[in-house]
Structures are given as C-alpha cells and as structure tokens.
C-alpha cells in the first residue's frame, strides 16, 4: 500500500494502521449485509409457523425445526420438480454451449461478406429485452402444440446465445493460426477442425458456458411459468406457488426451507466453478 513510499516515521504508519482497521471493519460489515439475508432465510426455515407469526420478532427458533426441510420436501413433489428443472437445465446448457461454441468459431476464425453486420446484430441482440419476444413466442409455440413440452428449450439451446457466442469468439480468436493451417493443408473440413482441434482446447470456456447457461435455466421463472403446466413445471415455479395448506393458507416456514433447498445447488455450483464462471462474466464486460 501507500506506506512503502513514505519515509519511515511513526505518524503515517499509525495512520495506515487506522486506515486498514477502518477498511476491514467496513468490508466485514458490508459482507455481513450481503450474506445476512441468507442467514435469515435459513432461520425462517427452522422456525414453527407460530414463531413466524409472532409479533415481536423471534430472532432465533426456540426449538430448531429441522423437520421443516423434510416436510417442505414432502408437501409437494419436490423431487419431481427438481428433476424437471434439472432435465431442462441440462438440455438447454448442453445444447446452447455446443451451438454457441460452433457459432463462436465461425465469427472468430472464418470470413464472409456480411460478417461485420451479422456480428453487429449479434451484439445488438444481447440488448434485446427477452420479455418482448417471450410472450409472442409462447403464442407461437402454443399454435405449434409445443406448450407443455420441453421442445422450446431444445430450440433455444440449438439457436445459440449471443452472450456465450461472444465468450467463445473471444477465446477462439486468441488461439494461434497455425492450429488450423496444417489441418487445412491436409484437406480437413472446418467441421473437423472445430471438433478435433478447437473444442478440445477450450475446456475452460466450455465449462464456464455450461455453468452460466445452467444457472440461467435453473433460475428462469417466466418461461416455465408460461410454457409448462403445473406438474411439468420447474422448481422455481413450484417453490413460488405451491406451498399452501389444503385450506389455501401459505406455509411460510416450509416455503423458506424450500427456497434454501432451491438456491443452495446454484450456490454450490458457483462455488465449485467459480474461476471459470467469473472469467466468463468478466470477458463480456470488457467488450
């Protein structure tokens, strides 16, 4: 820090130490603010309904209700919804990663008239509000009889995602030219070059893209809400709407427990894949 360039007398050193103390205090407090809400969600999931309804807030559950998590799991078909979410996310993330890598290769290594314009449209379409296309898309899928199937996710996956295309383009553009030249001379098609030479080199981007796409899909609420009937729907939709007693009153403590179980997988995936994920996020920012 700044201390190194200052003459070694006592006053600045004390000031530096006080500065550090302030910095750490602020950082710890901020981190508390950012992490605190999770803690509260978990605590809410461990209380009884009576404690949750009590008027002066009960900070801690008097008796920890671990069984809330099991109850939340059993009250609805949690596993079934989780399976739906997982299937959709896997279909989408796999397809969109492959198709985006394919398209990204085209933009990075190949040339043709109109490339600039197409790339401009691709980047521009990143700014296109999804919601605006989603509602008419729903009506079209309804006409095609594809509502309540997972086909829309297949199509969305095959169509590549601009954000991920950009990610792959940046990566492929950075690889040396020699990589493909020899293969071209040997008469290999670009498909083979992509599949056998470029793809095996790109594990970091592939995994980043997969994780990003998986989280998008896992977190998506409106598309499954629109396109899928209740029992085919995803965990995101189920957690939001199905935690009610037979009398129709919402069960807040079970819903809190369920949301913990819904969010934790994504947080774990993030923590495991952190490096690639963060690298993926930051490349786009540097456009």
């Amino acid at each position: 820090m700044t201390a190194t360039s200052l003459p070694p007398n006592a006053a600045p050193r004390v000031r530096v130490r006080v500065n550090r103390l302030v910095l750490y205090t602020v950082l710890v407090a901020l981190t508390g603010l950012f992490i605190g809400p999770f803690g509260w969600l978990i605590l809410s999931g461990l209380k009884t309904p009576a404690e949750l309804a009590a008027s002066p807030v009960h900070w801690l559950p008097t008796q920890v209700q671990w069984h809330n998590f099991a109850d939340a799991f059993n009250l609805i078909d949690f596993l079934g919804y989780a399976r739906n979410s997982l299937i959709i996310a896997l279909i989408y993330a796999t397809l969109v990663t492959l198709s985006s890598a394919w398209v990204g290769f085209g933009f990075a290594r190949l040339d043709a008239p109109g490339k600039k314009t197409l790339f401009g449209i691709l980047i521009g379409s990143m700014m296109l509000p999804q919601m605006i296309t989603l509602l008419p898309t729903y009506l079209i899928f309804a006409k095609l009889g594809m509502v309540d199937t997972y086909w829309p996710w297949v199509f969305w996956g095959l169509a590549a995602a601009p954000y991920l295309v950009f990610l792959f383009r940046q990566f492929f553009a950075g690889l040396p030219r020699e990589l493909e030249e020899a293969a071209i001379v040997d008469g290999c098609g670009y498909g083979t070059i992509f599949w056998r030479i470029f793809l095996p080199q790109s594990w970091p981007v592939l995994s980043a893209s997969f994780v990003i796409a998986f989280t998008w899909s896992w977190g998506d609420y409106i598309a499954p809400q629109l396109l899928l009937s209740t029992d085919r729907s995803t965990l995101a939709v189920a957690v939001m709407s199905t935690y009610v007693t037979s009398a129709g009153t919402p069960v807040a403590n079970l819903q809190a427990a369920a949301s913990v179980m819904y969010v934790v997988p994504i947080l774990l995936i993030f923590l495991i894949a952190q490096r690639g994920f963060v690298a993926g996020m930051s490349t786009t920012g540097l456009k």
Partner: protein
Amino acid sequence: MTVDQIPATGRTGPVESTGRTAPPQRPRISMTARRHRAFYLFTSPWIIGFLLLTVVPMAYALWLSFTTYDGISPHWSYVGLGNYTELFSDPQTWNSLGRTGLFALTSVPLSIIAGLGLAVQVNRPIKARGLFRTLLYLPAVVPPVGVGLTFKALFDQNSGAANGVITLFGFDALGWLADPYARYVLLMSVLWAAGNVMIISLAGLQDVPRELHEAARIDGASAWRTFRSITVPLLSPVLLFQTVTGVIASVQTIMPLLLSPDGTTAGVTALPQSNYLYMMHVFSQYFALGRYGYASALLWVLFVLILIVTGLIFKFTSGVVFYNVDPEAKK
C-alpha cells in the same frame, strides 16, 4: 491432433508435415469460397434461431398489436391503431412507465456506484481478498425467485428481520411489502446483486496499468483524484456496458411480482401501486385480462422506447467513453 479422415483425393499413406504446398486436386472451389461457405454454415444456427425465435415472434406481436386477439375467442378483429391510441390514453400506462423510469434512474446508478466501490476495495492488497470477493458476489448468483423469497422473509411485517431491527430502536413495525415502502424493498433487492457490477469492474481494474497510478501519485494527486481521472475513464467502456444492460434489465424486471404477497402472475393486479411497473402492466393485461393484442402493443411501445433510450445513452456517452486498452476490443 489426430487427422484420421483424410478424404479420398488421391493422397494415400501418412501425411508428411512439410506443410505449405497447396493440396492436390481437391478444391474445385477456391479456398476463399470455402471459407465463406464455412462461415455461413457455422453461423447458421444463430442466424436461423434469431430469425425464427426473435424476428418472427416480434413480427407476430406487431401483427397482434393491431388486433383484439385474446388467445381463446375466435371472434377477434383488426382494430388498426386502436390498441395504440387506447394505450396512450390509459393513465396506467403513463403511471407505470413513470415508475419504471424512476426505478431505472435510481437502481442503475446506485448499483454501478455500489459495484464499482466494492470493486475498488476488494482490488486492494488486503487479507482474505478472495473470500471477500466471493461472499460479496454470492447474492448475484441467486436466481430471481430466490431473491424474491429471501426479501419477503427479510421484510415480512411480523417475522421479518427488518422490523425486528427497527422495533429494537423503538420504532413501529412497518408494512414493508405494501405501499409506500415496497419500492424501497424492490430497490434493495436489486442492490443486493451489486456483486455483478463488482466482478466485471474488477476485471477492468486489473487491466488499468499500474504505472498510471504510480505516476499520478508522484505528481501528488489524491486518491480520489486518481480514481476520477484515471480509473473511471479507463473503466468507462465497462461502465457503459453495465449502464445499458442495467437499464434493459431494470425495465423488464419481474421482481415486483416475486415480492408481492401472492407472488404469482395470477396476482399481478394486486401488486402494491408503487411496484406496479410497466412490465407488470403488460402482465396484468396479458395474464389477468387475456388481452394479447393490447399487451403486444404495450410490448412494442416498450421495445421502441428501449431503442430510443439506448441510442441516447450511446450518443451522450460517445465523447466520454474512452477506449484504450486494446484496439481489438473496440467494436
């Protein structure tokens, strides 16, 4: 690099790695033509997908916006600009549009300031830097439904921690999720994800050449001055990107829905007034009233507005945004 499929072009046996000679016989079409064809082959999934999943739906929505289509009834009619004239005379359109504008105007700058501030702090040589970065970024990964439910638990009138804290100080418990406070909860739920801006700015910060800061310090510039005159200009492309995507995201946020007591699209009409944003108005026409034609008109108006706003943002920042780092990065 296994090249096991050598096409039958007369070349047999192992390939010598002598390299640069033109391949025999094979290309009936030129190399360039082959590259062009390959380019379109490779980009076609996106091109076709873009046409079918974006252009067609938007054109369809445009057509619907001139009709009274409701999805069920076979009796719908072409009403020309009827939906548009109704939309502009509907006070709900203007009110929700105003709230959306206000929401974007507060949430986007605040997120960027918060994210940039955090980035600068966790870019300093501190202990447990990685841990701070991870923990501050963590909420940005939480899916919208998770954010909605977490904030509902936090701001619940009875069981929420927010009321727990303020009653400790002798204030009365507030109905956070109702008017007029709901808008602040919405804002806080967005700021919770400031880690997004942080992580992207952090990558930008690491590209700021160290010498620039050192030179400024030798010239006697204060920390604030260095930040303002060196860090911010160098980060400006990143900040512009954040602003544009932030505005677009805030315009189509579904968070008010997830924060509402009911929390589903069915309850969209029961939202607190202050969180009844433009997209909520679209949903209420669409889901609650089944007015697909009218909702499509609302969406097209929003689309045009977004185009205008992003155009203006680019126009007004063109002199300020400073591309330097790498000429390739400038698009």
